[in-house]
């Protein structure tokens, strides 16, 4: 036993040296690497030598009945975290939401950006079979099955799967229906996991992920064990047990009481109470959740852009972040994706200007305006933010009537109905935000932003090979939205996870649902 431990410790030491060297290199190499990643590897290096062994229990909010080990049916955070432990995607999102290669070693588009060649890395499923191009095609076809209802189906829509084929065991050729410069985003889409060919039962899931299946009781727990043959190196932990505790107070108690070592999704109030007291470590993942209001741009009063501009100026963003998010977040600038790749960070930060707002409303003939604000306890801070905005609007002479709806059906209720509503979004690339919500044909276009010239800009960006030129096009789109769009984005909420002090290696940068979020293969217990 001792013999083994010392051997493991040595390996751990080598690993840590490698990480530290990498960090040093990144630092001396200057700023070419993105800052988030550099800071992360530095954190990992500072936290000490990874130790092998141990079981980590992680508590997530769950869905009882909704829980499934079918990675394509993943819908909740806990599903995604479990799927990530057992499976891999071709790519995943880095901390800036740019796609990072995973099972795909590299991708190359053709000249017209409508055919992409994906080369797979050497990886194996838990039963020893290699991951091949056929497995990739099978998985994608399963997700895109016209009869199926898998969430990633919409993301895979640009692929012409009938025309796509395996060039050889390690190479997939995807034919697209149209040029798509940001195609790697599809490979990283939520739920686009690779399962072995012909899999249809997930009672004993076999994936290529860092952990292998142990046991599963729906609504209660999933146990996974270290996959020593993992292509990225075996995880440090022997075992991870995912447990479900839907009540936030229960997750907190379990963590404080030592029953779990990782608790996902705590409230800012809990974090403040226990932060820095030594019992638990609080990790705030910035940029995880965008918070705002949607104004429907196709109907009065918001079909007049001056009214929308007035509303942009009514919001006191600091007050909203402090009040509705208990200060756990940062102010927004009416644009999605602060800190992400292509974010237009050069635009001036908007602040409250009630005089200008009043003048704009007067110009638009909308004095003494009355609007109904739809909200529901569908996300943290929704109802609070609505109340705060109501007060702010009153100062500009606008009467906001807050209507609290049903949280289970909220998102569908506000998609086409009403004029003004609370809104929130998890992290996704700015490109996905635009294609899913801001094009004429977008399926979840809650602001009813349907502008021909905007659509054209998007299409132009997708047929542009040069990344700089593409960035310029994204900036033009965002400038347009900043000036007169329908999203009043007042803040970005931190995502709060907490761990026992013995847990190391938790990324402090990764927004929820990105690669380094809930990455249990990178954690170790000291």
């Amino acid at each position, binding site marked *: 036993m001792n013999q083994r431990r010392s051997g493991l410790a040595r390996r751990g030491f080598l690993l840590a040296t490698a990480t530290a060297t990498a960090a040093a290199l990144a630092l001396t190499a200057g700023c070419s690497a993105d800052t988030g990643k550099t800071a992360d590897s530095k954190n990992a290096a500072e936290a000490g030598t990874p130790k092998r062994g141990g079981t980590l*229990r992680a*508590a997530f909010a769950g*869905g*009882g*009945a*909704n*829980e*499934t080990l079918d990675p394509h049916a993943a*819908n909740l955070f806990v599903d995604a975290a479990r799927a990530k432990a057992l499976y891999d995607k071709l790519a995943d999102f880095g901390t800036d939401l740019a796609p990072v290669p995973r099972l795909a070693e590299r991708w190359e588009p053709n000249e017209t950006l409508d055919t992409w060649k994906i080369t797979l890395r050497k990886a194996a499923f838990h039963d020893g079979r290699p991951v091949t191009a056929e497995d990739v095609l099978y998985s994608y076809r399963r997700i895109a099955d016209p*009869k*199926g*209802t898998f*969430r990633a*189906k*919409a993301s895979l829509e640009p692929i012409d799967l009938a025309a796509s084929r395996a060039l050889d065991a390690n190479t997939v050729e995807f034919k697209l229906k149209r040029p798509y410069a940001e195609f790697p985003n599809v490979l990283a889409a939520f739920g686009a996991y690779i399962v072995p060919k012909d899999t249809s039962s997930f009672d004993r899931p076999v994936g290529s992920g860092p952990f292998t299946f142990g046991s599963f*009781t*729906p*609504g*209660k*727990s999933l146990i996974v064990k270290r996959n020593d043959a993992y292509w990225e190196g075996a995880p440090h932990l022997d075992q991870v*047990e995912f*447990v*479900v*505790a*839907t*009540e936030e*107070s*229960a997750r907190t*108690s*379990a963590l*404080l*009481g030592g*029953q*779990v070592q990782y608790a996902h999704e705590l409230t800012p109030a809990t974090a403040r109470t226990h932060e820095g007291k030594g019992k638990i470590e609080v990790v705030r993942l910035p940029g995880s959740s965008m918070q705002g209001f949607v104004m429907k741009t196709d109907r009065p009063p918001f079909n007049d852009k001056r009214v929308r501009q007035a509303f942009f100026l009514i919001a006191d963003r600091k007050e909203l972040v402090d009040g509705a998010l208990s200060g756990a977040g940062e102010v927004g600038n009416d644009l999605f994706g602060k800190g992400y790749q292509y974010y237009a960070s050069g635009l001036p930060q908007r602040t409250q200007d009630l005089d200008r707002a009043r003048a704009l409303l007067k110009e638009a003939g909308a004095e003494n305006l009355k609007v109904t604000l739809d909200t529901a306890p*569908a996300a943290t801070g929704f109802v609070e933010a609505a109340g705060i905005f109501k007060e702010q609007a009153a100062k500009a002479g606008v009467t906001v009537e807050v209507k609290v709806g*049903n949280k*289970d*059906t909220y*998102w*569908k*209720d506000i*998609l086409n109905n009403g004029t003004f509503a609370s809104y*929130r*979004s*998890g992290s996704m690339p700015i490109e996905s935000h635009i294609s899913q919500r801001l094009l004429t044909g977008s*399926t*979840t276009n809650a602001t009813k932003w349907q502008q021909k010239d905007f659509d054209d800009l998007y299409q132009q960006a997708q047929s542009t090979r040069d990344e700089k030129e593409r960035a310029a096009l994204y900036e033009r789109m965002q400038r347009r939205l900043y000036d007169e769009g329908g999203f009043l984005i007042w803040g970005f909420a931190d995502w709060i996870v907490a761990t026992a002090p013995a847990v190391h290696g938790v990324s402090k940068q990764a927004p929820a649902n990105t690669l380094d979020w809930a990455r249990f293969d990178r954690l170790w217990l000291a």
Partner: protein
Amino acid sequence: MARVTRQLNWIGRRLLLGLGQTAAVVLFIFVLTEALPGDAAVALAGDQPDPERIARIRAALDLDRPAAERFLDWAAGLVRGDLGTSLVSGRPVADYLTGGFGPTVTLACATLLVLLPLSVGLGVLCARREGGPLDRTLSALTLAVHSVPEFALGVLLATLFGLWLGWLPPTAVGADPVTEPAVLVLPVLVLVSRPVCTISRLVRAGMIDAMASPYVAQAQRYGVSGARVRWTHALPNALAPAAQQLARTCDWLLSGVIVVEALFVIPGLGTVLIDAVAARDVPVVQGMAVVFGVVTVLANLGADLVARRFAPRAEAVA
């Protein structure tokens, strides 16, 4: 013999009535869940309410068929003993019930084991010391505890015994109550807290009445010992109303312990029900309604039998 047949007749009538009541509850639940805004497809779509996807889910789940047709299908299945399958996961509803049954029944039984002797003991004790300082203290205490919501009490106990003192596990997360019974202590304490107040007060009132009754006075005149009068003559009469309250407590333990299950992470029937309602998983909700209906009917039947046995004179009332 005649008495036994009469008794069986009575039970038969009660069971028939119970069956009707259960059917009515199930129909009622179906109508209510239909009346809820949105269906399983909408709930499943969550914050990605792509209309085309919702339509596809709806078709895949047969939700586009008329409500009456779906209900009749389900009822036909029920007659065959088939509770149907979940809309969300496709697993049989029976799995959900059996999965949730174990933890809930364990919790309910543990609660009853503590509750019965405790409330009877307290009730008798208070009745003996009627008006004394002990009676008044206990009465004030039971009233006070009764007015504390379970959620608040649960958080308080978990913080005090689980986190500050570290005597007991603050939640039951990931634990098996059979091998680690310590995880049940706090949930049982919370569950006992309210019914013990009502039942002990009913026992106390019943005892005081019974002790003042002519037959107790008669028994005392015959020289029957005080303890015997109290436990074998007065108590059974005092228990009749308490038994009926206990039946209500049993229903509550099965369906009303949602707060405690959520607070202490016990994956029982209450949790299953809440999740199913949020997901608009109608077959699961209906399956739960059947189970709760049947249990309620049986528990009340049991309570009435006990009441008849203990206090036959109350028969006319029942």
